[in-house]
């Protein structure tokens, strides 16, 4: 093992945090490397120096009481005010699982999206139908002969102007122009 890799693990070795295999490899390296042994000794002296610092002062008196007072204030502020509609609607009661609220919101958003898509599809269908009417939906134009009581013209001789007119008006897709 390289010295650099060994030295980075010396502290974990001294704290017995290494897996057995890694520990054996490092101990084997230390048995033959005086530099790394000196490095380990220096680390141990540093640890002694660092831990010689005085202990911090104890937790200030009343810390817990002051904290609990603030915690009670925050909890009270989160409770909905009776009669306040918007608070009831928009704020979750204490203890409400916010994950459930988040799922509910997502479900509502998904439904709104689905509804919008459905409306769009229906509108698209309507637009398509009006642009491409099927034969069964085509408006059947009334027979002009019947509408304008021109029955007497059906007796007109063949090839006459009247016959030509009747042929023209009775042809499919005639629009009268």
């Amino acid at each position: 093992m390289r010295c650099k890799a060994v030295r980075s693990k010396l502290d974990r070795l001294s704290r017995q945090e290494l897996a057995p295999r890694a520990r054996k490899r490092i101990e084997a390296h230390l048995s033959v490397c005086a530099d790394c042994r000196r490095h380990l000794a220096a680390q141990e002296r540093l640890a002694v120096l660092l831990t010689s610092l005085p202990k911090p002062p104890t937790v200030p008196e009343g810390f817990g009481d002051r904290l609990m007072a603030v915690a009670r204030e925050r909890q009270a502020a989160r409770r909905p005010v009776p009669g306040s509609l918007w608070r009831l609607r928009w704020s979750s009661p204490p203890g409400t699982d916010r994950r459930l609220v988040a799922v509910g919101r997502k479900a509502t958003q998904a439904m709104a999206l689905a509804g919008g898509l459905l409306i769009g599809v229906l509108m698209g269908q309507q637009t398509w139908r009006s642009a491409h009417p099927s034969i069964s939906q085509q408006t059947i134009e009334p027979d002009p002969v019947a509408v304008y009581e021109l029955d007497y013209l059906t007796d007109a001789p063949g090839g006459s102007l009247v016959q030509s007119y009747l042929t023209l008006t009775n042809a499919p897709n005639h629009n009268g122009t």
Partner: protein
Amino acid sequence: MLAVARGDLSAFGQLVSRHQTSAWNAAYRFLGNTADAEDIAQEAFLRILDSADRYQPTASLRTYLYRIVTRLCFDLSRRNRRRRHQPLPDLAANCPSPEGVFILDERAAAVRQALDSLPPAQKMAVILRYYEDLSYREIAAILKTTVKGVERLLARARATLEDRLGGFLEG
């Protein structure tokens, strides 16, 4: 934590009693004064209270608490870069001779200064390792890095500290 998530403040009180020393010590070691340390420790517990219903037991509560304390300490130290330390506690009770007191004071001041010279992540890694006695795995979870990452942080921190405290390390 389940009880705290349901709004049980007495459960929260028990949680505070159990962990307040850890939060306080880490914050004090990092920031060096009681006022800031109390603010940070208090805020850390309140954040746990606020997020209790979202707490996932993927890490221990102690790890979660240290993580919040660490983040708050980093934020505050960025804002207060030149905050002065409070005077060190009185050491005379443990060391009767005046020379002994002077030496201890001088050494403690040097260690404190050397720690303060470290970048925040290295400093917190040293605090968690040497003063809170946490494992590398726990420190990695708190600092959101890997065990190798913690090895690197501590290796760099040790190199700086050995360089600055060389005179106190001889022998």
